[in-house]
């Protein structure tokens, strides 16, 4: 798995010209060296450019509300209490609680339902397995809007619109992308381990839990961080199902409704936006390997 880390060495850069070396070669090397330096400078400049929006958002979050409407970049006074005030102005803690509930239950449901399906698709032989793989990839590829109207009407008919149930419950019945991702991981488990477990008289479920899962912990972590991040940042689902019930709002829905009586208070909105982003960023720094592993596996083997 060392290929995941970008560590490839490349023979670049200048080397002292040895006597007797062709002049042309020296010139060519110098040109190559200059090209490399220019490219590095460019990518580093680009990286700073990518960070600029974060800095500007943070600066806006620290301004007074009147200053956000002026053409100045630097806060006159750093209003750190903006980050406290957001909690008083909107029930940010409650939104965060709802989001956490959605993300934790959603992740749990996804793992519980997707792991067995992925295992059956990767490692067991049964009729229709191939068709189901195609259907799973198909579902993964379709926009959620396709099923929105009938699903909404279905949840409305059982009176669950306004709660988090319509967001969480489906995840307990399999999540196509997670099934696909886990299947890709399970394929890498050598068949011999499974045969050995079966010879010992293990049931399929037992083989899965005792043999396969301990070997694929990184995969479970990758799926978990993906699903958590997705739920935490999800907007369309919460907008639709809890948009009319403020007590169940999640952070993304709450952020869009953040306004004073007449206008948006941008300093507080930016402060709340940064706070909403924080948990996922922290999660990323703790689980960076899982993120990268998951992303690359979807792309590379997919």
């Amino acid at each position, binding site marked *: 798995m060392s*290929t995941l880390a*970008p560590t490839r060495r*490349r023979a670049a850069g200048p080397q002292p010209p040895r006597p007797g070396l062709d002049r042309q070669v020296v010139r060519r090397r110098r040109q190559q060296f200059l090209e*490399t330096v220019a*490219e590095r400078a460019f*990518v580093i400049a680009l*990286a700073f450019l*990518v960070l600029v929006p974060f800095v500007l*958002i943070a600066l*806006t979050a620290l301004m007074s509300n009147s200053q*956000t409407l002026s*053409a100045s970049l630097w806060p006159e006074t750093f209003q750190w209490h903006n980050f406290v005030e957001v909690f008083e102005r909107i029930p940010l803690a409650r939104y965060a609680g709802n989001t956490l509930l959605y993300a934790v239950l959603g992740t749990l449901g996804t793992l*519980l*339902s997707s792991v067995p*399906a992925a295992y*059956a698709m990767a490692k*067991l*032989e*049964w*009729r229709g397995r191939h068709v*189901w*793989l195609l259907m*799973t*990839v*198909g*579902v993964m*590829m379709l*926009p959620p*809007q396709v099923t*929105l*109207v*009938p699903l909404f009407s279905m949840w*409305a008919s059982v009176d669950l619109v306004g709660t988090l149930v319509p967001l969480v419950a*489906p995840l*307990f*019945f399999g999540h196509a992308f997670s099934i696909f991702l886990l299947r890709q991981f399970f*394929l890498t488990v050598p*068949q011999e381990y499974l045969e050995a477990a079966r010879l010992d008289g293990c049931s*399929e479920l037992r083989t899965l839990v005792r043999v396969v899962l301990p070997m694929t912990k990184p995969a479970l972590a990758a799926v978990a961080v993906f699903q958590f*991040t997705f739920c*935490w940042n999800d*907007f369309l689902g919460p907008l639709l199902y809890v948009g009319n019930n403020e007590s169940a709002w999640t*952070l*993304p*829905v709450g*952020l*869009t*409704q953040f306004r004073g009586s*007449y206008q948006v208070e941008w300093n507080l909105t*930016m402060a709340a*936006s*940064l706070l*909403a982003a924080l948990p996922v960023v922290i999660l990323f720094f703790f689980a*960076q390997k899982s993120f*990268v592993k998951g992303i*690359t596996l*979807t*792309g*590379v083997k*997919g």
Partner: protein
Amino acid sequence: MRAPGSLARRRGFRKRINWPAMGLMAPWFLGFGVFFLYPLLANVYISLTRYDLITPAKFIGLDNWRFLFQDDALLTGIGNSAWILLIGVPVKIAFAFLVALMISRVKRGSGILRTVFYLPYLMPLVAASLGFVVLLNPSAGPVNTVLSHLGVDGPLWFDDPGWAKPSLLLLDTWMVGNLMVIFLAAVLDVPQQLYEAAEIDGAGRFGKLWHVTLPAIRPVLVFAGVTACIDALQYFTQAYVVATSLSGGATNGAESLGYPNDSTLFFPVLLYKQGFRYFNMGYASVLALLLFAVSFCIAFVMLRRASRWS
């Protein structure tokens, strides 16, 4: 990738149902049926009715389908979505690929660069959209302030119908970290010998890129292309957040969607507006079926590749 114990040898036995496998698959069988197949088919029925969620659905035949030809907003929605698909997707992929290529050549500190370019992707889409609304504010935003110091008259960005989509693309390009990480891993996976061989054959920098890197990572490019297209077809959150936060007080009125001048009325936004603001569920189902048809064609590229696995 196929499990040993070849299929052919066991074919005779496979007529029997593999009960453990069925047990493991049961939740997904159920989920697929209830949360995907049923709604997909129900769309067809709802599209033939007048239905507003409150009064029972009333069968009206093909009226909703006929309305397709009278709906001016439909062409606007298709046009806007086509813009994202035909201009937005290539720009995003090209940018992600170039960044990945440059990072792959960096010897020290490439991990930090990768993290920096990935970071925006972690930002909740709503938060990032609101952030860009502030950054690109025409009069008081930092971007136009800097531009005016440089003597450039900045555009109205999200407030200008001509600039709204490019501004959204700017936001999307900023958040392209996911694609970049996929490309980076793929580029680093290209065997070094191929480059050496190409070098011996006299290939320059561009020759190596064209004849070695691109063919080697073709599957990844296809995957990324399909995924980006599907994302483009469900383009909603950014457009919704930007339009509703800029169009003033009438936030919950349907008219704020697509601001300014329907320039951000993408197909999914139109579907949402018809279904959940006007409660024309029948017509929204027609739109959903159209979306299904288009995305199925794009997903088909991916499915054809998937059919060669297992």
